[in-house]
């Protein structure tokens, strides 16, 4: 749901530029990347989860419920894409961020 606004409290013009994403910078945690870049499709109800439900064992369609998700596989899929999922470039997440994300997903699924 949208945040409700309180008009009187709004700055009319933000003079300082605001970085909305830090694409390519290694400061983002795996949780942050997953939440902002993956969860939309790969949580319950997402189209990625619905597509995977046709291909993987019952109960494993959500990425965070996988019994096995080898990091090397995650890295390959993210960089090359798979099925209807387009790939991600190194400016969307760096190699270091991708490796951390893949390891985090793997650990979470053990």
């Amino acid at each position, binding site marked *: *749901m*949208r*945040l*409700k*606004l*309180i*008009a009187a*409290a*709004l*700055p*009319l*013009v*933000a*003079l300082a*530029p*605001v*970085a*909305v*994403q*830090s*694409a*390519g910078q290694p400061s983002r945690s795996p949780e942050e990347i997953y939440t*902002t870049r993956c969860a*939309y*499709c790969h949580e319950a109800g997402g*189209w990625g989860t*619905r*597509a995977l439900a046709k291909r993987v064992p019952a109960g494993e369609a959500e990425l965070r419920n996988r019994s096995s998700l080898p990091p090397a596989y995650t890295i390959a899929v993210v*960089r*090359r*894409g*798979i*099925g*209807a*999922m*387009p*790939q*991600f*470039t*190194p*400016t*969307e997440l760096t190699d270091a961020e991708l490796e951390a994300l893949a390891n985090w997903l793997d650990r979470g699924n053990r």
Partner: protein
Amino acid sequence: MAVLPPGLTQQAFDQAIAEFRAAIGEEWVFTSDADRASYLDPFDMGDQDDHASAAALAPSGVEDCRKILEIANRHKVPLWPISMGKNLAYGTAAPEMRGSVILDLKRMNRVIEVNEELGTAIVEPGVSFFDFKAELERRGSGLWMSGPAHSWGSVIGNALEHGVGYTPYGQHVETICGMEVLLADGSLVRTGLGALEGTKEWQAFRWPFGPGLDGMFTQSNFGIVTKMGLWLMPEPEGMAGVSIRVPAREDFHALIETLRPLRMTDVINAPYTIANGWRQITGGRVRSEVWDQPGAISRERMEELLAERGQGWWSVIFNLFDSPAALDLRLDKIRRAFAEKLPGATIDVQRWEQGQPQESWMRQEVSLAPLGVVDWGGNPGGHSDFGPIVAPLGDRAEEVYSIIEQRFLEYGKDPWIGMFGISSRALIFVADMFFTRTDAEETERCRRLFRQLCDDMADIGVGLYRTHLRFMDDAAAMHRWGDHALPRLNNRIKAALDPNGILAPGKQGIGSWEDGE
């Protein structure tokens, strides 16, 4: 095997890459096979390698871009600027010309200004609709973003490519107000009133003293747009979501004639979408579940499937934006118009008022929903679309629709056709081709169908609003009037602004349409 820019030796290219690394930092120059593969088009209608890049560069800002341009001009390295690189169905991040170097502007990702009083913003290329929505919410803004069907793309990129949304601000190119553009020679220009030092009107008015140039930097390769101003809609007091079922194929002419005056008089004050029967039967299933014969799904089978779901041959959806009382008046006019001209139509309405929770029909949430249909025809799926611009006149729309439907059936493709009433006086047809990417026969057949339709449309004076990379030259060449006077003018402008031809060669066929693919 290494991919090189046309005309460059490996040695010369290695030298250019070394200079790019020194200019913007080694970590922002991508040359590995894995990194280059991430810029391929996953939905290409053919071999992805036809549009492979030689490398990718990710500048941090305008000064990095200038350094890159200087090196590229000296070494004759072609650059393909992208913003988010999510131009899905039209080429994604891939370059038109194989061997181009991607200029990935994603690191330039600031929302520089949001002006609540004027309802304007200034953004950089790397701001996606996801990012922009989040930033407006973070600021507690009272302004609404107009987003396209999928939110992964860039706010700037979508507007420059003439993308559409579903609010009164849904023709995104018309929300552009002022740009900062870097030309091939490294000079930086601000268009419109941005040319005045100390201006406070850059985003207030599009037309400066002299020609308005914003349009020439959309769908072109004349410069790199490094900042863009745009208009944003204040949150409306209310909305109505209108869904109309129209029963028969033969109702199409009357439907167009009913919608046009409603849109022209702004009773319907946002783009409407018409879907034909084939477009309505896909949701929640794949093609093989409903059709196991060769060729396109027959009209008879499609009509059976429509009947099972209680759908009409045509579906129309649109949202209205106004105060609750004014929405009542708009809805009354719409109901009276349909009662008079299409009494068989069924109209359903949903309502929302400021302060209530938002619902999915309002299309205000970010989304990647269109990706869900990519595998409709087979896995791994791909798609692209044929998008003619058509006057919303019954006879004209029927003429174009009939040609497209017939050609799709002839080529064994389901005529999956939508029409978007993006403005008061234009319909954009979107005739989607879904294919299995690994099926060489099917992708080749789709390419032939696309080019057949280009010929068909050019013969009746209809052009395209956008195309996949593969058909840029075909689409440009359709503009035949005056011995191709307009494409020739584009070529002359290109030659004047970018004599080395380093910026996005092949984009929209500018500089290349005479040669063809």
